[in-house]
């Protein structure tokens, strides 16, 4: 799970794409998912996500995201089915509209989560910051904050699992199957995790400052983030996705 947000080096078209284009592509997929209620369009977007994953050489990661979201998806599906009371009743309190809405919500969740993970798989976090600053002229402190937050996610997950292992070694039953009991055991760990996170964030800020954080401008990066044919193709795909989501009823 900790490698979910890790960059995987490669030379696929997605690796070579400008980081800004990748962000635009991600946003476009998310926007298309929210603009449509058509299940077929949502299914197409999901397939499109997997195709991106395969193109990036990260098919396994795409499936692991899918697996990770499976339980949440089932929970959401059941919840939506029970709460949406419009439409024709099929059995018990379940209606046809409830089923369709639930399916749309679950598909939307999957469609949105996959590209966010994939963009981090094919892009160095520093390139995201670099491109945001250089191409979009985002002030560096904001880009740094964003990328540091992304970089810290796996670190905090590692830290949490470290704390859990330490607690397990001292007899705490984290391997219990009772989710409520597990949650009860996890909550007290939030405070030490938060404290260590704040401490680490402070130390990282100092580390950045002693290496010239405040001197960085949009011209500082030695990598140039140009646009090429692959970016043009991606832009056309983005436009097609949005248009499809809006125009297909």
């Amino acid at each position, binding site marked *: 799970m900790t490698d979910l947000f890790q960059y995987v080096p490669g030379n696929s078209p997605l690796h070579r794409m400008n980081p800004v284009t990748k962000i635009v592509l991600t946003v476009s997929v998310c926007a298309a998912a929210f603009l449509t209620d058509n299940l077929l369009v949502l299914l197409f977007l999901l397939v499109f996500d997997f195709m991106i994953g395969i193109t990036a050489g990260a098919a396994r990661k795409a499936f692991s995201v899918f697996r990770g979201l499976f339980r949440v998806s089932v929970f959401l599906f059941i919840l939506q089915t029970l709460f949406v009371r419009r439409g024709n009743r099929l059995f018990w309190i379940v209606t046809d509209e409830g089923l369709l809405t639930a399916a749309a919500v679950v598909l939307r969740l999957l469609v949105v989560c996959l590209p966010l993970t994939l963009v981090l798989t094919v892009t160095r976090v520093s390139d995201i910051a670099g491109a945001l600053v250089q191409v979009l002229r985002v002030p560096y402190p904001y880009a740094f904050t964003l990328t540091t937050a992304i970089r810290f996610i796996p670190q905090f997950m590692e830290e949490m699992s470290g704390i859990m292992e330490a607690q397990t070694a001292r007899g705490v039953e984290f391997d219990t199957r009772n989710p409520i009991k597990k949650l009860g055991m996890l909550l007290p760990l939030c405070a030490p995790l938060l404290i260590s996170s704040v401490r680490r964030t402070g130390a990282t800020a100092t580390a*950045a400052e002693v290496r010239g954080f405040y001197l960085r401008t949009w011209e500082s990066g030695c990598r140039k983030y140009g646009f090429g044919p692959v970016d043009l193709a991606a832009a056309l795909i983005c436009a097609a996705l949005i248009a499809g989501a809006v125009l297909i009823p």
Partner: protein
Amino acid sequence: MIEIQSLTFRYEGADRDALRDVTLTVPDGAFLGIIGPAGAGKTTLAHAIGGIIPHAVRGDFYGAVRVNGSDTAETRLTDLSRMVGTVFQDVESQIISSVVEDELLYGLENFGVPRDEIEERLTFALEQVGIAPLRHRTVSSLSGGQRQKVAIASLVALRPGILVLDEPTGELDPFSSRQVFSLLRTLNREYGMTIVAVEQKIMLLCEFADRLAVLSEGRIAREGTVRQVLCDIRALEEIGVNCPRAALFSSLLAEKTGAEVPVCVNAEEAVEAARRVLG
């Protein structure tokens, strides 16, 4: 040059001073090793030299620390870091980027190193620290020791006039520890870089450093050349510093035979002293 005058520092909320009336001068081009038991104030002293205290750490700061004539309390941390590079004890929090190459590039880009010089500096640092094959690896895939080397390389690439390292070999095996100290000596002798290394492995300091400062309960207990500091083994042991066996041997040899035995810092010197005294 580093000049510390009557420095006293107490962390916010602490009930005792971490440093008490510390006065120390480190001339340009020196290689100073700082040793002392846990809680003696070694990290605090390293942070005070790098300007992290008082800029990034809250507390009561008295006295003065001057680096190349600039008072660290009055100079911006960014400006200080052009003169002093600091390698932290907690390597995890020092690493900013997710890829090794980016980590080294970060400081080089920020400090505006000319682009045609960047590749040379990057390659030099990676090769000297022995992590050239890791250049394109993600930091998360590295071991603790490898991460420590990356942190050191990222500062070496910047080539500051003064390099302060807080336990730079804490997570390294004996071979890598020697490799890092060999590099520090190269930087010191060939590039004239002033090195201040806080280290628990006294054997390494004795072999590579020119001078030693022994800290005890926030004060400088002893300071001088390696041999000057090691000449009073008993005092060091009382402080809680493990002395090199060669120095212990020469001290015992002198005590038991009554002969005049110079302080030995390595096995070869100890063997030579034994031959001379015992015949």
